[in-house]
């Protein structure tokens, strides 16, 4: 009797849990398998219809060598790292204190300012890139990586501010009040008491800011046109295609390498990431 119910349970789990989970994994991760397989093949094997394309017959690093020797991939990587680092740091430096002010301090216009920051967070970049090209040209930052350094905080800061404001609201006010009774200034209480407690929130805001700047596409495509100033997402697809023709091997190698850093970052911080997603109800 027990054996029968157990077998039914196993069957049920196989059918209603493992099967759909397997299909979901296949759909979501499959393209990365194909990316990796293509990157590791020789050109001969990629375009050879004679045997199955599903696995690597003659593993080779040719495409990676091509990427490093024949394209600006190293420069793009350095550019992307620089832009992501500066975007993360500047958005935390600006957004964390602002989030604290919105969550804790009463001052004239606080509601209006909070609303305005939230609205700018929801205004999509595809609405702003055309005038942004003009604005950057006017201040002499056209066609330089500095344009991205200046522009990325515009979508990172509102996001960090909101995420942090909702995080600060979860920290009890009594702690800083007792600190103030002990003689700390407001700024001192924020620095010595609240910020250490907010470290997990700051960490997830930082992870989001880093991945958002690493992945950004439309500004990187339209504000910067010199190959030496490009980031990975733009550089890879622009330099590894000619019209409708694509260099699939190096392109997939570049896509793979361009994805690894963010994949690593969030693999180690996946819990922070997941909790951050919902904290401000916001984006990654």
């Amino acid at each position, binding site marked *: 009797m027990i054996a029968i119910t157990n077998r039914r349970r196993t069957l049920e789990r196989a059918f209603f849990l493992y099967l759909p989970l397997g299909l979901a994994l296949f759909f*979501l991760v499959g393209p990365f398998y194909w990316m990796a397989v293509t990157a590791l093949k020789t050109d001969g094997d990629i375009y050879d219809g004679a045997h199955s394309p599903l696995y690597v017959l003659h593993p080779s690093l040719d495409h990676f060598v091509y990427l490093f020797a024949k394209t600006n991939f190293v420069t793009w990587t350095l550019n992307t790292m620089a832009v992501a680092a500066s975007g993360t740091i500047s958005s935390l430096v600006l957004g964390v204190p602002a989030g604290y002010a*919105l969550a804790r301090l009463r001052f004239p216009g606080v509601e209006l300012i909070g609303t305005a920051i939230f609205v700018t967070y929801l205004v999509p970049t595809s*609405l702003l890139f055309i*005038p942004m090209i003009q604005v950057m040209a006017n201040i002499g930052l056209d066609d330089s990586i500095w344009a991205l350094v200046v522009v990325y905080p515009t979508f990172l800061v509102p996001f960090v501010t909101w995420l942090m404001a909702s995080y600060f609201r979860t920290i009890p006010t009594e702690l800083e009040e007792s600190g103030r009774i002990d003689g700390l200034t407001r*700024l001192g209480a924020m620095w010595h008491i609240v910020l250490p407690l907010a470290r997990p929130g700051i960490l997830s805001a930082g992870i989001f800011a880093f991945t958002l700047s*690493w*992945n950004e*596409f439309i500004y990187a495509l339209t504000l910067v046109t010199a190959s030496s100033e490009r980031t990975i997402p733009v550089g890879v697809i622009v330099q590894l295609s000619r019209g409708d023709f694509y260099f699939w091997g190096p392109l997939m190698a570049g896509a793979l390498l361009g*994805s690894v850093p963010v*994949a690593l970052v969030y693999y180690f911080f996946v819990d922070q990431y997941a909790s951050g997603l919902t904290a401000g109800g916001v984006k990654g």
Partner: protein
Amino acid sequence: MLSRIVDNERTLGLLLVAPVVLLLAGLVAYPLSVAVYSALTDQTLAESGRFIGFGNFVNVWDDQIYRQSLRNTLVFTVGSVTLKLCFGLGLALLLNEAFPFRRLVRAAILLPWIVPTVLGTMAWLWMFTPNFSVINYVLAQTGISKTGLPWLTDPDLAMFSVIIVNTWRGTPFLAISVLAGLQAIPLELYDAAAIDGAGKLHRFRYVTLPLVMPVLLTTLVLSTIWTFSDFGIVYGLTKGGPMNATHVLATLSYGTALSAGNTGEGAAISLTMLPILLPLIIWQLRRVRRSVVA
């Protein structure tokens, strides 16, 4: 003296938000006003243009390609968001169960969302490429379709393909957000419902669904805004083709402003996204406000 002034709540508050306000005024509000001004001129990449009132908006509205792009944007958004909702909700329920390697599976599932969208899109472009499409190879091997399907060259199928890729990218966000909402539900509620004789379906309908609803609505609104304004996936896969069948407002405004060089008209096209985006933004704003006050 200085520290006294800074310790004043009002002064400190204004000091802390001032840099953010200045940044957003200079690099969001100002560009937005530049966009409105350009949209009212016949500006091109080469010339600063002259004021033509609502000429661009009138022209754009009479343009077949614009109307088609608007329709495409709506089909793309409704199609993708519906699929993401179904897959995301289902996946969240699956991930909420206990099974081996759950942490690893959860991390793997997030991949499409976390890596640069255009790079993931390139993998799909390669899978859809005529002659070498791995999807068509599998279809042929399994005998489902000898010749394979024209994924990106047939107008209807191309729209289907961009929707699939958008669903691929956005499902993890929905699933992981909803999962966090599911995990916040106290188990006692399920026990109580079970004691009252509620079956699996009833527990889902009367316990799970109402409690994840706030998270679900937030992720849906955000997902709708991002899908509606998406650029990278369509640009990467089809650049709006074949025959404008997948052009959305974001790619059309890019093409008009940068490829054709009509920046005024391009700005006008992108501004026409606002009447649809604004109600969503305002609705979400109200919900956030209520939750902050409560």
